[in-house]
C-alpha cells in the first residue's frame, strides 16, 4: 500500500510539472524580443514590404493574440500529439518528423558516450578507491578534476584542434561524408569517424564526475563496520570489494546517472555545436537563433519530459534498491 501511494504521488507530481513546463515553454519563447518576421526583415536580401510582413505573420499564426488564442491552440495541439510544423528552419515539415530524424543521430552519440563514461568512470573509481593513494589513483584524480571542471566546448575545441588539425585523423564536422556515397561497412566506418570526436568529448567530459563520485562513495563504504566484519569472516579481499563494498557504493551513482541526464542533454547541445553534428542539440540551437517557435517548443518539451522521466525512474529505482526510501 505504501508503495502504491508512493508511486501515484510521484506520477501526479510529474503530471503537474509537465503542465507547468508546457505553459512555461509557451510563454518563455514568446516574451523573447523580436518576432521571427522582424528578424528576417533585416537579413540581407529580405526585401519585404510591411504588407508582406503582415502576410508572413499571418502565415506563421503570429497575428492572433498570444493569450488565449495562441495558447489554447498550442495546448490542444500538444496534448493531441500534434507539435505543429516548422516555420523557419525547415518550413512546412512536421516538427515530430524533423525531431526524430535528428534524435536518431543524437541518441547514438549520447547513449554510447554516456554508457562509456559511466562504465569507465565507475571502474576507474572502484580501482582508485580500492588502491587509494596509489600512483594510478593520484594520476586519475588529477585527470578527473581537470576533466570535471573543464567546460565541454573547451574540451571539444581542444580535441578538434588536436585530432582534426594537428594529426588530421578525424573529420571536423558533420555526421557522414556528404561527398562519397559509402555503403555497407564503409558507411559505418565513415559514421564512426564523424562520431569519434563528439563521442570522445562527451565521454571524457562526464567521466571525471563518475570517477570522483564512485571513488569517494567507495571510500565511505570501506570504512563501514560490515566491511570489517566481512574481512573478519575471512572473505577474500576481491569479494569484499565486489559483493559488499561496490554494491553499496553504487547507490549514489544511480542517482547521479538519472540526474546527469539533464546535463548530458545540455552537453549534447554544446558538443553538437562545436562539431556541427546535426542532432537535436544543433536543431534546438538553430530553432532558437531563427525563432522557429514550433521546433523550439518541441525540442524543449522533449528535453523537459526526458529529464522528468529520468528523475521518476531514478526515484523508483532508488526505492527498489533501497527499501528505506519507499516508506519514508
Amino acid at each position, binding site marked *: 500500500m505504501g508503495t502504491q501511494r508512493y508511486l501515484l504521488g510521484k506520477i501526479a507530481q510529474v503530471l503537474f510539472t509537465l503542465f507547468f513546463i508546457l505553459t512555461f515553454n509557451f510563454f518563455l519563447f514568446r516574451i523573447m524580443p*523580436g518576432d521571427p518576421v522582424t528578424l528576417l526583415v533585416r537579413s*540581407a536580401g529580405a526585401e519585404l514590404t510591411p504588407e508582406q510582413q503582415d502576410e508572413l505573420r499571418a502565415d506563421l499564426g503570429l497575428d492572433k493574440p498570444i493569450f488565449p488564442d495562441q495558447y489554447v491552440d498550442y495546448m490542444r495541439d500538444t496534448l493531441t500529439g500534434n507539435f505543429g510544423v516548422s516555420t523557419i528552419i525547415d518550413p512546412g515539415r512536421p516538427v515530430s518528423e524533423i525531431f526524430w530524424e535528428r534524435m536518431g543521430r543524437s541518441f547514438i552519440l549520447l547513449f554510447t558516450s554516456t554508457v562509456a563514461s559511466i562504465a569507465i568512470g565507475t571502474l576507474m573509481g572502484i580501482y582508485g578507491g580500492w588502491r587509494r593513494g596509489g600512483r594510478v589513483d593520484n594520476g586519475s584524480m588529477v585527470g578527473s578534476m581537470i576533466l570535471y571542471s573543464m567546460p565541454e566546448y573547451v574540451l571539444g575545441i581542444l580535441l578538434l584542434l588536436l585530432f*582534426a588539425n594537428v594529426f*588530421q585523423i578525424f573529420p571536423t564536422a558533420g555526421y557522414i561524408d556528404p561527398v562519397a556515397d559509402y555503403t555497407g561497412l564503409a558507411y559505418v566506418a565513415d559514421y*564512426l569517424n564523424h562520431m569519434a570526436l563528439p563521442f570522445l568529448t562527451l565521454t571524457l567530459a562526464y567521466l571525471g564526475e563518475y570517477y570522483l563520485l564512485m571513488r569517494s562513495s567507495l571510500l565511505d563504504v570501506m570504512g563501514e563496520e560490515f566491511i570489517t566484519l566481512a574481512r573478519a569472516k575471512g572473505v*577474500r579481499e576481491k569479494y569484499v570489494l565486489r559483493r559488499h563494498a561496490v554494491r553499496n557504493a553504487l547507490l549514489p551513482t544511480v542517482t547521479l546517472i538519472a540526474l546527469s541526464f539533464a546535463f548530458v542533454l545540455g552537453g549534447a547541445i554544446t558538443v553538437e555545436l562545436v562539431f556541427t553534428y546535426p542532432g537535436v542539440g544543433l536543431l534546438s540551437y538553430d530553432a532558437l537563433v531563427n525563432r522557429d517557435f514550433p521546433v523550439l517548443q518541441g525540442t524543449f518539451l522533449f528535453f523537459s519530459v526526458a529529464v522528468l522521466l529520468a528523475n521518476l525512474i531514478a526515484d523508483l529505482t532508488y526505492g527498489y534498491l533501497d527499501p528505506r526510501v519507499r516508506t519514508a
Partner: protein
Amino acid sequence: MRRARRIAALAVAFGVVAGVALTNTAAFAQSATPSADEKVTFVSGTTNDMRTVNPFKAIETPEYEVLSLNYDMLINFAKDDLGPAPGLATEWSQSEDGLTWTFTIRDDAFWQDGEQVNADDIAFTFSRIVEFQLGSGLDYLPYSTPESFTAPDDRTFVWTTEVPTIAPTIPPWIYIVPEHLWADRDKDAMKKWNFEPGTNPSIGSGPFELTEWTKGDSWTMTANPDYWGGAPEIDEYVVRRFNNEEAMVTALKSGEIDYLSAIGPDLFDSLEGQAGITQWVGPATGFVQMSMNSCDPENTASDFCADTGSTGHPALLDPVVRTAIAHAIDKDTLVERILGGYGEAGETIVPPFASQWHYSPTEDEAVTFDLAAANALLDDAGYADTDGDGVREMPGGGEPLDFRFILRSEDEQAPDMGRFISGWLTEIGIATSSEVLTDGKLVNAWLDNDYDLYIWGWGPDPDPDFILSTFTSNQCGSWSDTCYSNPEYDQLYTDQKTASDTADRQAIINEMQQIIYRDVPEIVLFYDKSLEAYRSDEWTGLEDNISPTPEGFLWGQYTAYTALTVQPIGAGGTTSGGSGGGVSPVVWLGILGAIVIVIAVVLLSRRGRSDEDAA
C-alpha cells in the same frame, strides 16, 4: 577463469593490432576509398545554414548561391562590371515611346527535365510575382501589372510598363521557373514550395541542379551537362555547413573542404603561408554604417515619422552636428583595427564594387577625420559647454549632447567599434550612453524612432536602385535606416528609375549620393571586403574568372562564372571526398571487436566467480 584470461590476452593483442593500424591511418583511408569511378566534387564550407530554396522566398546567402546555380535569370550580371549581360535573353531593345521592352529568348536553353525554355516561362514567372505579390522579386518589376508580360512567340518576350523605365535592364534579380511545373500551384502552394528529393525536384535551367539536402548538415548540387553555357568541369558541388569558423578553417587545412568564405580577419590571416592554400581578398560589397535619428515629426514628408514621433536627440536634426560627428570618426583606424585592414574607408552609400555607379567625393566635398574642424563647427553653431563638465549643451544652454548609442549584440565587432567612436566623440564634447541590444530589440527601437545612434550594415545589390530607395521618405518605417526625408531626393529617386539612358541615370545617381554624403543622415564607416580561401594545390579555374573585376569573388558570384571553369589540377581528376583523414573500416572493425571481447571477458569472469562467493 583460465579461459577468460586467454580471451583477455587475445583482446589485448587485438588492441595492439588496432593501435598499429591507427598509426598507418592515412594509407588505410586512401586504399579503402570505395568508389572506383572517380567523381569530381568541389566542396565548400559555410557557417550560414540554408532554410529554403524556394526561388521566391530565399533570403540567406547560401540560398541565393544555390538558386544562382540552379536557375537562370532573364538577364545576367556581366562578369566585369555586373551590368546587364545576356542570360536567357540574348538581346533586348526599348520602343520609341519607352514603354515597351522586347527580348529575344535563346533557343538552346532547356529545363533540367528536358523541356525547352520558352518566352512563356519568363512571362509566367514575372506575372505570377506581380499577381501574387511574391517576395523580393516585386521590387524589380515596377510600373507593371500581371498583364505587362507577354510572349507573342516562343522566342520573343515583351514587357510593357506604365511609364518609361530602365528597370528591365537593372537586371531583374528573379530566377525563372518552368511554367509546366509551376502553373498549377496557387499562391499558397508557390509560397510553401520547398525542395524534397524525389517528390519536389528543384528544376531550373542553370548549370547545376540541387539533388540532395541533409538539413542542417550539407547539400549537393549535380552538374547539368546540357547547360547552354557549356557543361561544368566538375560533376558535383557540395556545401558543408559548419557551426563555427574555427572548425571550417581547420577543415580547409586538412583538405576536407576545398573552399571557404566569410571568415574573420584573424582566421583569414592564420591561413597565410599554409601550403596548398591560397587566400583571396574579394570585393567590398557591403558596408557598415552609423545611423543617426533623422526623423523630425514637425518637418517631414513621411507620414510614418509624423505619426510615430521620435525620441531622437534634437541636436541630431541639425546637419552641422551630424557633419561634426562625421569629422570626428577616423575611418582608416576602424578599417585597420576592426577589419584587420581588409576593407576601405566608407564614403557614399553605393559601395565601390559597383564601380559603374559608385561616386567618390572630391577633395572639396570629402569630410575627413579632423577633430579641430569638428570642434570649430560645433563652437560656431553655438553648441557650447556652459557648465564645464566636458559635454556641450544645446545652443542657449539646454539639453546636453548625450546620445543613446545602440550596438548589436549579434555583432562581435560592435563593442570595439562603439569604444572607438565614443572615444572620438568625447573629444568633441559629445557624450554617448552605449546600449547593447539584440537585433530583435534594435528593430523595435528603430521602427519606433526610439534611438539616437546605432551601428548596422547593408549588403546592397550590384545595381544601386534598392539602396538608394532606402533613403526615400516613404521608406521610413520600412527600410529607411534613419527616417531621413528630403523631397528633392525623393524626386531624384523616381527620376533615376525612369531615366532615358544610362548616362542620365548615372548623373542622377551621383547627385543622390552627394546629397546623402552632404546631409549625413548616416555615416558609412567602412566597406568590408569578402575574404575567401581555397585549395590551390588541388583546384584551378577560379582566379582567371573572378567577377566583378578588378576585385572580384572567386566563388559565390552574382552570375556564376567560375562554377563552369573550376577543375581539378591534373588530368586524373582527384576527388576530395574522404581526404580529410578518418580511420578505415578495418581499424574500426578491430576496435569494435576489441570492445566486444572486453565486455565478453567481463561477463565471463563474473559467471566464473559465482561459486566462490558464498562466504
